[in-house]
């Protein structure tokens, strides 16, 4: 049996992509994850920008993960300028990231992924039968957005972060108010993890390499070395020596390889590499089930995201309980020329930036490697393995649905990866 399947628009993924599948004699002879959103050109138009213009601009790469872009950028720029903003800024940046993980994962879990697991075509259909699940997701998402607004002054494309810290420090009463709301809603996050652990998961085990940041003392968000379960352990400055991007003719998003091989970034990779750094209340929930980490089943990604929402709430409470109003929420910039690197954990995985600044304090060049680009090769491998295991004799519609579910495990942000699913199946 041979045929060609083309899915022109992938459903329930962020941005627009397509899948082209060629099947010959019941084997996949060609599989292409086509990203056709136009190139964003951010790396080019950041040139000649001042440092804080970069922070404002990169927030606009994504409406869902702006904090990640800002945090990777400030890290790189502050490295060039040899700036250390101090412990208050460090904690506030971590708090900022907690908000982003909550809102980004919250949207993905409830609007994009949950319908798959509960057998619905959309969250709207699902909401009629499972209103409490959707409402829980909306409350957690809203809390995340409040945290973003607190530090970023608005939740979409925040403007509060700057090189050296934040333009404004939240007032103590604002922190206390949000802290109370977080504590009141902590049970929702615990329920979310329990719910995810109760779902049914297909046996989708496969071999892959997980890559994430690792910090000796904390679950990684803003800092750490880049590690893998294949023995990689490098500084962010060494990224380009090990990871190579390349163009493929059918995608406007670059592919990335680790020493020639595909790899996974994102929540499942983070948990696979940092499970022991999670708080005991979270680990106890997992240990009551048969689910184990590290896991090589991509369908467990939804559990990983739910865990990270719960973790973000616990961590946010910790930071807010210790909050003190600072003398100054940022340190002044002392511009220098040079090259700097930033690497933080966006909701979807490792986000790496490189900037070169000239002696006038303006960007000479920039390079941004988003997590979705890094996952593209892995997604294609997974699709090949997953669809062949599922059975290529299924109808085109069934293959489309299965393909979309596999892709959704990665929560791709296609708009970010271009600086859903139209499937073409060619069977012959």
């Amino acid at each position, binding site marked *: 049996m041979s045929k060609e399947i083309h899915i022109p628009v992938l459903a329930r993924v962020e941005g627009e992509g397509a899948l082209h599948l060629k099947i010959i004699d019941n084997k996949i002879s060609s599989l292409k994850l086509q990203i056709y959103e136009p190139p964003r050109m951010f790396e080019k138009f950041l040139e000649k920008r001042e440092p804080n213009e970069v922070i404002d601009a990169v927030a606009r790469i994504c409406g869902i993960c702006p904090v990640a872009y800002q945090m990777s950028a400030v890290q790189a720029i502050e490295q060039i300028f040899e700036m250390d903003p101090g412990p208050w800024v460090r904690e506030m940046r971590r708090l900022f990231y907690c908000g982003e993980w909550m809102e980004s994962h919250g949207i993905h879990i409830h609007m994009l992924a949950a319908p798959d697991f509960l057998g619905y075509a959309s969250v709207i259909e699902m909401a009629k039968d499972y209103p409490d699940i959707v409402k829980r997701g909306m409350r957690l998402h*809203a809390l995340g957005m409040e945290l973003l607004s607190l530090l970023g002054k608005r939740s979409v494309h925040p403007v509060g972060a700057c090189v050296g810290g934040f333009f404004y420090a939240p007032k103590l009463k604002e922190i206390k108010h949000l802290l109370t709301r977080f504590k009141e809603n902590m049970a929702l996050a615990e329920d979310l993890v329990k719910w995810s652990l109760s779902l049914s998961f297909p046996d989708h085990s496969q071999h892959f390499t997980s890559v994430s940041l690792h910090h000796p003392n904390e679950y990684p968000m803003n800092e750490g070395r880049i590690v893998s379960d294949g023995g990689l352990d490098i500084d962010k400055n060494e990224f380009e020596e090990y990871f190579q991007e390349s163009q493929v003719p059918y995608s406007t998003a670059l592919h990335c390889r680790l020493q020639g091989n595909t790899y996974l970034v994102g929540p499942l990779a983070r948990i696979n590499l940092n499970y022991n750094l999670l708080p005991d209340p979270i680990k106890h929930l997992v240990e009551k089930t048969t689910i184990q980490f590290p896991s090589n089943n991509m369908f467990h990604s939804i559990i990983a995201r739910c865990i990270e929402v719960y973790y973000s709430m616990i961590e946010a409470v910790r930071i807010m309980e210790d909050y003190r109003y600072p003398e100054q929420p940022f340190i002044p910039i002392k511009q220098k020329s040079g090259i700097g690197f930033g690497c933080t954990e966006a909701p979807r995985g490792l986000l790496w930036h490189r900037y070169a600044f000239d002696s006038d304090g303006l960007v000479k060049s920039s390079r941004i490697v988003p997590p979705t680009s890094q996952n593209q090769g892995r997604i294609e491998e997974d699709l090949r393995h997953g669809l062949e295991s599922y059975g290529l004799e299924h109808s085109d519609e069934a293959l489309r649905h299965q393909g979309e579910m596999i892709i959704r495990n990665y929560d791709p942000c296609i708009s970010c990866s271009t600086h859903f699913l139209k499937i073409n199946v060619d069977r012959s």
Partner: protein
Amino acid sequence: MKLEASFKVGVVGVGSPFGADNVGQRVIALLKQSSKSKAFKIEYFDRPGMHLLDYVKNFNALHLVDAIISEKPVGTIHRYEGIEVLQESNQQLSSHGFGVAEVLLLGEALECLPKEIIIHGIEIDKESLKNTISNTINNVCETLAKKIEMELLQYQT
């Protein structure tokens, strides 16, 4: 006669602030200029997503203003009671594609919408989304703002 304090009426304009999709923002700005509208909660949101549900859930009546593209002539004023008119879109949604219609349909599924919803729209030309709002559409915005104001005053009689 004053509007009962317990009966909350909201007017929400939505849509991009750019191009002809700006009619929501324009109509809200006109309503806010009028002293007669002060008893009502009048706000504009640029593509609010799910935040719209949080905002409207405590209203008893909601008037929503947006640009509409259908088969009608440009400048047509649309008025719909309830959300039945909203087509259930493909619903294969990403949050990037989760627009006002999808948010309202989700709100209906969750039973958290105001009891009364009126959708006001101005027909725009799809091609003009990229361009600044035309004089014709500007004039229609003024007409619609006056119509909405008259409807709001009905709550006070």
